[in-house]
């Protein structure tokens, strides 16, 4: 029993124990310093850079300091760093093969950071998901959709697929597709559409509204009227302009038709005979 305690006492008073203590202190100091420095750097850079860069600075400085202290701690413990790095190299190849998806996401993440197609706070559309970017991390991008759901999109799929950034440019175009009856005067329709756009203060005067005749449809002449607005007013204008067009068309007697079907029996046959009957007659039967 005495021997056991003596061993422990020897170990505690040995050089080795001091190395371990120093290593632990180094790791502890590393953690604290990394946290302090990264927060201080973010605060310093806070107003000068955007959210995305601030996050990069925070994470970059945190991990850099932490890794340096960890290496020093390992050094204190007597590890030969050269051998350790070599072993890490072999290990990383093995791990890389085993975790291809994660590695691919990681590299895609680096490309995303370098390419900067969007930043934190932007609104993006990926496939059918539209949302605000909460963070761009090494493995994935996190979105908050407008119905308040949290969506995680792997970086690899972002690199491979089409991503639309909705908040990149300050102004946006709204395409309104409307059909008018064949009897209507297109010139008048065009004038009414322009007048409606002109009266709405949210609709930009310049770039001018665009009028495109899309073609003769099955039951209507189809028109596209494209108007521009400030990005923030997109939804408001989209809602109000449709209502205003409908009201203006009603006022001016312009018909927005719904699909018509004309039953035609061919040129060789007689027209369908139609017989009108009164209500009483129908009830009697």
């Amino acid at each position: 029993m005495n021997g056991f305690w003596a061993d422990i006492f020897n170990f505690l008073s040995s050089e080795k124990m001091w190395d371990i203590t120093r290593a632990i202190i180094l790791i502890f100091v590393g953690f604290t310093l990394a946290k302090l420095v990264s927060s201080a750097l973010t605060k310093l850079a806070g107003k000068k850079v955007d959210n995305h860069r601030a996050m990069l600075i925070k994470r970059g400085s945190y991990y850099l300091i932490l890794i340096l202290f960890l290496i020093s701690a390992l050094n204190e413990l007597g590890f030969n760093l050269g051998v350790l790095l070599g072993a890490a190299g072999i290990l990383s190849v093995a791990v890389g093969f085993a975790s291809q998806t994660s590695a691919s996401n990681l590299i895609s993440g680096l490309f995303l950071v370098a390419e900067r197609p969007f930043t934190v706070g932007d609104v993006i559309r990926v496939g059918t998901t539209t949302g605000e970017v909460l963070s761009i991390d090494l493995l994935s991008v996190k979105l908050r959709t407008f119905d308040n759901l949290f969506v995680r999109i792997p970086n690899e799929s972002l690199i491979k697929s089409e991503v639309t950034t909705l908040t990149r440019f300050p102004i946006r175009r709204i395409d309104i597709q409307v059909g008018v009856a064949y009897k209507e005067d297109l010139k008048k329709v065009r004038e009414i559409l322009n007048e409606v756009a002109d009266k709405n203060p949210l609709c930009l005067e310049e770039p001018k509204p665009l009028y495109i005749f899309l073609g003769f449809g099955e039951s209507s002449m189809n028109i596209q009227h494209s108007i521009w607005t400030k990005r923030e007013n997109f939804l408001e204008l989209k809602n109000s302009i449709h209502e205003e067009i409908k009201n203006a068309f009603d006022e001016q007697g312009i018909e927005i038709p719904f699909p018509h079907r004309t039953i035609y029996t061919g040129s060789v046959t007689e027209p369908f005979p139609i017989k009108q009957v009164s209500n009483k007659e129908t009830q009697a039967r």
Partner: protein
Amino acid sequence: MTSEIQPPTSWWGDYNVGIGQNRQWRIGPLTLIARCLSAEWQIAHERTGEFDENRATWNVSDTDVPLDTLANIARYIFHETAGLLTLTPLLADRPVISRPHTPFNLPGGETVTLYVSTPLWVDLAVGSSHKKMTEIAIQRPSDTWFGPSTQEGELCYATTTHCRLNLKDLPQRPHRAITPVVIRNQADTTLSVERLNVPAPLLPLYAASNGRLWTPKVTLIREEDGDMAELKFDDTPPQEAQQAIQLNQPRKTTSEGMLIRAFSAVFS
């Protein structure tokens, strides 16, 4: 019931509204009612869509029309209300793009002075310390984009102008301020003016003795090489404004009264 009260000479200035009273202003297309309560102000406003621009008038009256008959209503809570309301006209918070009804051409070497009017806002402040409540556009101008592309440029307000050359032809309108714009074409080629950028946020506002509102003179110079344009503005009221009093400072300040911009940022 609406009773006219003895009008001051202009619609802006200090007004005393008794507790529980409603005061109504009609300025051009805007109807504004302010109601003073013991610890709050209620402000209602509405704009009429159709009105004759050239025959715009203003009046102030006591009214008992309920505030909720107007489209927009807002409440402002204070610890105590003194019943003092100050109305001040303000210029637009973004540059105003003025489009002449008919674009005109200015041959090389020519100089012209045009009178361009821009829409105004009403600033509402209460008490002797002029605590700001809100500002309301008398006539909400349409938004427009002014820049070389849809990616670059700035959001402005759009207004159409007759670009009158003679001051006598200019109708007196309570809801618009006049800016004398001098255009100097120093290049050899003819300058076609389709749109003019009036830097409203950089200009102070003056009231002349006849009740007209003025901004300092703005000079746009198209330089000889044709690529750059100089935009200068005075810091004194224009000659046309007699015995002018300054009503407010510019919304934004610049260190110099001169800007040199790309040609496309001033003319279009």
